[in-house]
Structure formats: structure tokens, C-alpha cells
């Protein structure tokens, strides 16, 4: 079963903070969810390969240039920009 260390490790990988207050409930929830997920391991060992749903293959585009978008649009949704770049300040 999952313990708090594992939850914290998974949270770090997921780039999420988990507070001490959240931890007990989250651990219970995760335990239940994982136990539920685990029920698939009751199934006989299935070795049916699954590739993609319609078994598609070689869907490719030609190497032809499509004009890029105006930089104003590219940067338009960013909270902070500087000198044509996306910006993350040292601290805020």
C-alpha cells in the first residue's frame, strides 16, 4: 500500500505540493484508488498487444514549411515576457 513517503515522491514527480493537512485524506483516497486499480491483477495474464485503436500506421506529413505565428500571438497569453522571451523571474 502507499505510504506518505510514496505520496510525497509521486507529488514531487507531478510537480504538486501536498500540505500536511491534505496528506491523511489524500493517502486514504490514493490507497482506495490504487486498490481499485489493482483489481485488474485478478485478470488472467493478458498478453493481447494493444497498439492504437484503429491500428493506424505511418501517418506522416511532408517536410513543407508552414509560416510561423506572429510573436505577439505566441507570447500573448504569458503572464510575464521580456525582450521577446517568456519570462520566469528569479522570485516573486
Amino acid at each position, binding site marked *: 500500500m502507499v505510504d506518505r513517503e510514496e505520496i510525497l515522491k509521486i507529488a514531487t514527480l507531478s510537480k504538486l505540493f501536498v500540505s500536511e493537512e491534505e496528506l491523511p485524506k489524500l493517502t486514504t483516497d490514493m490507497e482506495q484508488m490504487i486498490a481499485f486499480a489493482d483489481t485488474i491483477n485478478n485478470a488472467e495474464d493478458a498478453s493481447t498487444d494493444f497498439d492504437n485503436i484503429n491500428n493506424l500506421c*505511418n*501517418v506522416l506529413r511532408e517536410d513543407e514549411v508552414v509560416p510561423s505565428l506572429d510573436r505577439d500571438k505566441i507570447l500573448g497569453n504569458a503572464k510575464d515576457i521580456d525582450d521577446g*522571451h517568456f519570462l520566469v523571474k528569479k522570485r516573486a
Partner: protein
Amino acid sequence: MKYEMVAGFETHVELSTKTKIFCGCTTQFGGDPNTHCCPICIGLPGTLPKLNRQVVRYAVMAGLATNCTIPEIAKMDRKNYCYPDLPKAYQISQFDMPLCVGGYIPLSNGRKIRLTRIHIEEDAGKLIHRHGDTLVDYNRGGVPLIEIVSEPDIRSIEEAREYVEKLQLIMRYIGVSDCKMQEGSMRCDVNISVREVGSDKLGTRTEIKNMNSINFIAKAMEYEFERQVDILENGGKVIQETLRYDDVTNTTSSMRGKEDANDYRYFRDPDLVTISVSREEVEELRNLLPELPVQKAERYVSELGLSETDAALLTKYRKIAEFYEEASKGTKNPKTAANFIIGQIFRRLDTESDKEAFDIKVSAEDLRELIKLIDDGKIKMNLAKSTLEKMLDTGKKATEFISESDMGGLDEATMISLCEQAVESNPNAVNDYKNGKEKAIKSLVGFVMKNSRGKADAVAAEAKIKELIAKA
């Protein structure tokens, strides 16, 4: 105790496609920040990747040129990690079903560096750190890369150098990448460990990341080899870690600081479908490959009788090899063209990039015409050499500099007369020669050559002069 180096390379090579791997944005180097971008390559929500056919073809060509096998089926996977230069928080790459597997690069010492695999993936954007702020430019994000992974088969700095140079050479030859290390279109990660000579166990390795110069690679490996040997000799243990090489201090240092242990959680990218390269296409691409430098060099030695050194010099860049083959075509001695190129033309090409660009004023056809004049006995080598210099200066043909009278040999009487003049007008040289200075004869021959405008037979002239001095 004696130690040996065990090293393997992961080499990233940017492919020379017109567009990015999953969208139609240009791959041009440079450009104002974030001007080669679209919703797809900045990872806007809802966008989807579409694989560039040319990326697959180039990667397969790279595989074929390095003796890889092309599996029937390949797939694309997501490598999940969060970093500001990676707009989707995953890199689309290939995990367990790459496009190419199991090749090798032969080295001049007879050893083969085995390749584990070659896979395709997208490049990340560029981060600029300014006063502690982080600025992000996604122009490079989504540029197609191949990653060439070698087995830990490299045993020395020399082998490492040759391995990287050969890869560079091959990729340029087949036209899939310009491999400009200084622009970052070829970058190496080196895994390195040491062990006692004679042992077949692998030691703990460190990985030096992201080096973009062959000299840095050599220096970094040298430093890291010695550092590891030092640790072992002092009874310590090498820690497995990722290192950065600092070319200013010539040291390696740990890259810790990405706080999180990596767990890439690879899985098949559900936005992309299976890749299957048909056997027909593999053959088609194989046929597109030019003769590779190693093969060319071997042929130059065995069929054309060049030295291995000359063959290597001539095959290093595709343009030079092509020039050489064209210039020597149908000439009596294939070495003549080789000597002109290596002896005279190379003097005008200072840097490696000059050689690669091979931007000279003389065409291969014009050089061949010049060589034919020698072959037909119409001019002597000395005249040919000085003529080539003029051709290289002006771009004009040989015949512009050689008059009718220059062609055809020198008659016996004129030759004797010139030899007599040489002896008469250079008493100092004659005396020197008489006093045992063998070399003094050269200036007398030079006199004859100069006054016959290079038409005299130097060997015959030398014999005649010696005869005249002996008689005197």
C-alpha cells in the same frame, strides 16, 4: 596499477529537415526569439503532433550508413519531465522501439565501436539566464534530432576523437545533418568509467553532459579519467552522477540541483501512430546513400594507389572527394591531382570549415585540363604548379597563363647553352659545390629552370651541369 578508460557516447544530431519534427515551423538556426513558433511547438492545450516524413527517412539513412538494422516496426513514446524549456512537460522520443538498432563505426585501429541504437526525438527550447531571471525561447523546440547511442566500447581519448569525427563525417556525407558542433547541431554526452587493465568488469560510470566541441570532449574525458583513477587509487568509490564540463577551469562538476530524481515514466504517445518502414523503402534509402568516406578512402588506396594519409585527407569532406574524383578522372596518375589538392589547394583553406565549404575558384575540370598538359608532356611540373597558383588567384583556365611557346620541350642546344650560362654566371655556387656542398647544385638547376620558363627537364639539366663542372 594500470587503468583503462571505458566510455560510451550518446550523440545528439540535429537533422537538416526544412521543418520541425511535429509542425511546419522552420528549423533555421538563429532568428529572433520565439519567431519560429506555432501553437504546436509551444505546446498549446489541444494541439497535436504530426510526424515529419523526412525525419524518418533521414534517421533510417543515418542508421544504414552506420551499419544498423532497421526494425519493421517502431513507435513514438513520451519521456515525461518538467522543465521550462520543454513546453509539453514531455519530450516525444523513442523508448523501446527505435528506428535503428545494432550498428557500428569502424576505427582505423581495426576496432569497431558498436552502436546500440539510433532514435528520433524533438529538441527542447533554449533557456537564457539573466540576473537570476529565466528567459525562454522556443525556436529550437521541436527541431528534429537523432540520438546515436554507442556501447561502452571506447578505450582512449584517440578513439573518442576518431569516433566523433567519423560520425560527423558520415552524417555530413549522407546529408542528414551539418553537424556544426559550435552551433549545437551536434552534441555529445559521454558515459565514462575506469577499470584495471585486463579486467572485463565495468566500473561505476559518470555521465558528462552536453559537450559541443571535440577538444572539450577530449579534455573532459582526460580530466574525468584521471579524477576517477585518483579516487580508486585512494581507495574511494566513484559515485554514479551526471556531470557538467567547465571549459574555463577544465574540470567536471556535478549537475545536481534539478531537485527531483528522474523517473521519465515513458509510455507510447497516444497522439501518434505506429511507424513501419517497408523493406522497399529501406532499399530505396540505401540506394540514396553516397559512397561513404571509409569506403572511398579504402578505394583510393587500393585502386588509385594513394597513401592512407592522403586518402583520409581527401575523403574527409564530401565536396573535396567529389572534386578530387572529377579532377583525377582520366588522368595518367591519380596521385597528381591528389598532390595538387593537398599540396597547393589546402594551403588556401585554413580552417576545417573552409575545407568543408571548399569554396575555391578553380573547377575540377580546369584542374584536370592542367594535369592533362603534364600527362601529354606539354609542360613540366614546375610550370604547372605556378600556373595552378595563378588559376586559384583568378579563376581563369590554365591556357590563359601558358603560351604556345611554353608548351613543347626545350631543344638540346638551348638546354646546353642555358646550363653553360648557369655555370659561368654563378661562380660562388660552383665553388660551393666543388667544396662538397651538394645542395649548391640546386640553385644552378633553378637558374636553368627559370630561364627556360620551367620547360627544362630538371633531372637532365642537373646531370649536364655536373658534367660541365667536372670538365672545368
